[in-house]
């Protein structure tokens, strides 16, 4: 009897060790979706979350041979620097969050797995699905296509920029949320006249989300010409190759009157911005939360914070960038063309890294992402935080954010050719610096246009050389 027992124990140990040896581990770093240590709300832990952990456990029950290991990044480490060092050191998780422009930089290094073949296959967790790609919204997903035409990133959630406004101040001044650019300028003037700081934005110092939207509304004709030049459909994504081609052929040109009008409109609008709009470190959100600024440009991610914040003692609302009409500029389209949404996937945009390939777990990593991107699971993951929108069709969503979802559905930054980092991130920064110097009166319009054209051409040449495009 004793012998039988010993044999059974040894056999058991052998089988369990065999199982252990066969079990595969898929690691993931999910940025803001990384589960928190506790579910207790504290100032240091304002948004407790555990959805990813629960999904990983459920997945493990379905696939006992696969364990999902959630990696925590040191809080003080910069995201990009952390990714660069982990990639170089061969310790990057199998699934990793990343901005697409970082991925674009890394393509020649072979750090990210091309997900096109997987996206062309069905998602087995969604009944009747023939192509995984079909589950996602077209526009925000197209925005993630890299210059070589492939998708390396799965966009899982969505955000969008908008203008938050202090309803109490608006009521006191007797104005409402503007619909057109002319109304917007009028509202800003009235707010300023009543002694309020009309508008603040953290993006003005670094990027200018609404700047891009305004540019798109002014330069609709140039966009048409760019599309014609590369035989692109009238709507949808404008690839970087088409933009580089337009620069080289002189179709996308900063000396064009449309471009100059864009810059003039920005300068005209700047008289309503907070004085320190060009200082990058200012906490403009705090100014809005304390009721010091009437309008604040930010994104849906601020929604939850504004709802919960005890500092916010006023009623607030949000409006989209108003539409440019002929009342403001002769270059406005007829009929007026509404502003396109800025945003897309940010907090959940996951790629599969070369380490998954090296460790032989690409299929498992992709399968876990497929599991997460079913409408039900995606809704569960994304809605836990309350301020992101699922990028999967049919997923439940926070009803507050439904109008933003509709806006994003109609096309966003992927269709805006002036979008700052469309060609290179370096150009995005350089253009912003030139715009700042022009708006602040350091250089005149002609100098700004000249410098900008030179930077634009340099960026186009860099991309052409990098990807070997021939026109």
């Amino acid at each position, binding site marked *: 009897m004793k012998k039988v027992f010993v044999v059974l124990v040894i056999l058991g140990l052998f089988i369990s060790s065999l199982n252990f040896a066969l079990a595969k581990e898929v690691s993931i770093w999910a940025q803001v979706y990384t589960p928190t240590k506790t579910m207790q709300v504290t100032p240091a832990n304002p948004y407790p979350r555990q959805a990813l952990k629960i999904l990983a456990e459920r997945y493990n029950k379905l696939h006992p041979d696969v364990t999902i290991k959630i990696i925590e990044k040191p809080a003080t480490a910069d995201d990009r620097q952390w990714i660069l060092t982990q990639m170089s050191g061969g310790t990057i998780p199998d699934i990793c969050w990343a901005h697409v422009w970082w991925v674009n930089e890394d393509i020649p290094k072979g750090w990210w797995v091309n997900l096109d073949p997987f996206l062309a296959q069905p998602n087995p967790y969604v009944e009747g699905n023939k192509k995984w790609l079909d589950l996602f919204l077209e526009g925000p997903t197209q925005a993630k296509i890299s210059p070589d035409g492939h998708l390396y990133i799965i966009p899982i959630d969505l955000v969008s920029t908008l203008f938050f406004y202090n309803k109490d101040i608006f009521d006191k001044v007797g104005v409402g949320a503007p619909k057109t650019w002319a109304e917007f300028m009028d509202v800003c003037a009235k707010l300023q006249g009543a002694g309020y700081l009309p508008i603040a934005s953290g993006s003005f110092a670094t990027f200018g989300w609404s700047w891009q939207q305004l540019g798109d509304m002014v330069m609709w004709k140039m966009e048409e010409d760019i599309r014609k030049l590369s035989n692109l459909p009238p709507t949808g994504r404008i690839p970087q190759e088409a933009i580089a081609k337009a620069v080289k052929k002189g179709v996308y040109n900063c000396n064009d009157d449309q471009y100059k009008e864009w810059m003039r409109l920005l300068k005209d609008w700047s008289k309503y911005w907070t004085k320190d709009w060009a200082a*990058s*470190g200012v906490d403009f959100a705090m100014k809005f939360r304390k009721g*010091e600024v009437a309008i604040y440009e930010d994104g849906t991610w601020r929604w939850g914070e504004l709802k919960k914040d005890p500092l916010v003692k006023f009623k607030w609302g949000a409006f989209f960038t108003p539409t440019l009409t002929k009342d403001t500029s002769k270059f406005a389209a007829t009929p007026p063309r509404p502003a396109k949404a800025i945003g897309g996937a940010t907090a959940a945009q996951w790629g599969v890294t070369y380490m998954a390939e090296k460790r032989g777990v690409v299929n498992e990593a992709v399968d876990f992402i497929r599991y997460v991107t079913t409408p039900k699971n995606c809704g569960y993951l994304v809605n836990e935080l309350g301020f992101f929108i699922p990028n999967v069709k049919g997923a439940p969503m926070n009803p507050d954010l439904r109008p933003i979802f509709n806006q994003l559905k109609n096309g966003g930054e992927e269709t805006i050719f002036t979008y700052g980092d469309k060609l290179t991130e370096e150009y995005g920064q350089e253009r912003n610096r030139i715009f700042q110097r022009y708006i602040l009166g350091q250089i005149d319009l002609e100098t700004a246009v000249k410098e900008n054209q030179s930077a634009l051409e340099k960026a186009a040449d860099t991309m052409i050389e990098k990807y070997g495009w021939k026109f």
Partner: protein
Amino acid sequence: MERKLRIWRYRNAYLFVLPTFILLCIFNYYPAFSGLYRSLFDWAVGGQAKFIGFKNFIEILTDKNFQISVVNVIKLTIWNVLVPSLIIPILVAEMIFNLHSPKAKYIYRVLVISPMVIPSIVILLIWQFIYDADYGLLNAILKNIGLGYLARSWLGDPNTALYAIMAIGFPWIGGTTVLIYLAGLMNIPNSIFDAALLDGVIGLKRFFNIDLPLITGQIKLCVILSLIGTIQGYGTMLVLTGGGPGVATLVPGLYMYQAAFNFGRMGFASAVGVILFLVILWLTILNMKYISSPAEYEAQ
């Protein structure tokens, strides 16, 4: 042979030094020499390095933004060397040194060094609040004393941003620098002061003819440290202005950081690093060569 025997005799001492030397080579010398080599390549972390000769250097030196950043760093260096590294700390050290009560001397030494425990990022954030265009302390003071017309966005105005950066740390009494000068003054033999007193060399005369020449070694050290810190530094700009507005506060250190970590151009950033290294080396040699005094050597 004798030398070999001597090394063998002191082998334990050499063994103790070895780990430090190896770590120094790995973490200090290797990256520096690697940077020199990489500056000749078009290289991003993890990517294929392509030899391009001096192209990076040509691009840097012909880039308008880099030229502006050099002008900015020259202004910052002149300020940082003169005011927070020389004039103010020497004056404070002199004042403490000339106190009669040893207890008072001790208290002031502690008071000068205490602010060093505050993390620099906290100080920067406090200054950010002070400079706030709409609700900042500085503008509030100006408005309350009838100088409201001077109120502005100190960090958001290209005409004032760099000067606002310089003013951070007011009244610029750096704890370590003051202590270095104080130690220098305390090191001067009392017999020199006694002789000076007998000759009637007191007050400013003593300061310029005895104190200053005899702390030249400390001055050299502080000037070199300040040069290196300012020319390489970019933390303040990274936190407060990002180099803006426009390029008003861009400095070569930040230019290098952005090239490396924002745009992934490591070879290019290495070339900026090499230029900074050469400039610092040149200035250090100049400093060593020209800031000297015979009195310094006599005192030693």
